[in-house]
């Protein structure tokens, strides 16, 4: 795991935000762990799904940074299967994700945690 420069996102965190933004733009306001791992695999063209520990640790960090919010799925919606934890981009998370995508397209600079003032 690469070390974090203060105020920046790790590549995995930037990837999560990027995929979350894509999901949000395609009408999926919320996402869950496996759905995200699957979308990340499709997005990156990788053969492997992100490890459980790696994925949920990164999700927890992004939530701590205020870039994601989460809640448990309603029991009725779950219909007998284990309830999912549903994540959604916060306003700040969406701004950082957009910035991260833009920066990734232009430079190799690691995306910043807070969107820079205009």
């Amino acid at each position, binding site marked *: *795991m690469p070390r974090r420069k203060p105020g920046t996102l790790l590549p995995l965190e930037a990837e999560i935000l990027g995929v979350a933004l894509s999901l949000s733009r395609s009408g999926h306001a919320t996402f*869950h*762990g*496996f*759905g995200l*791992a*699957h979308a990340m695999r499709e997005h990156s063209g990788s053969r*492997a*799904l*992100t*490890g*459980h*520990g*790696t*994925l*949920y*640790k990164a999700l*927890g960090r992004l939530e701590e940074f205020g870039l994601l919010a989460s809640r*448990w799925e309603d029991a009725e919606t779950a219909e007998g*299967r*284990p*309830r*999912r*934890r549903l994540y959604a981009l916060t306003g700040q998370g969406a701004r950082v994700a957009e910035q991260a995508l833009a920066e990734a397209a232009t430079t190799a600079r690691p995306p910043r945690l807070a969107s820079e003032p205009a």
Partner: protein
Amino acid sequence: MTPERMAELVARWVRFYTRNLPAPIARRRIGEIDADVHDHVAHERAHGTDERRIALGIAARMIRGAGADASSRRQTIARSSTTKEVKMSKPVHRSAVRVALVTAVVLLVPFVGMQIGDGVDWGVFDFVLAAVLLAGSGFLLELAVRKPATLVYRVAAITIGVAAIVLGEADDAPGLVVFGCLLIGGTLALSVRTALRSQ
């Protein structure tokens, strides 16, 4: 191995690394992984993936994330004041049991030796002194493991080890020399481990 068996293994692993963590944190991680693995199995079955491949896929995700699991646990314990109590109480108890057991096993050697031959002749004072020496060194090493950043405990352990070797040589007591060597070796091994982990 079926996907269900692998899911069970993952569930056990999650319960293992979330043990003694604050209940809401542990419950959340357990719930999330349960749902994730369930969704994983359902998704792969819906796409006609072979059962063995599904199980292997789940195992691979568990293994790839194991480092992050351990690191999450360490960070949660470091941050949580609730688990600080657990951290201070349970391992202290465990350390005491560990040191007592090792001391008792080592002291059994001369005790048994006295019963079966004339080569060993220890008095009560010898046993008490050896017990204090062994238990004291054991606790010193336990402290050094708990506080790897503090050099004092490791320096003290090496000092005792050197003193044991010097006294053992002067008094023609090979047991004391061996003890000193083991103590120094253990302390050095601990230092190497700490240095490697901090990289």
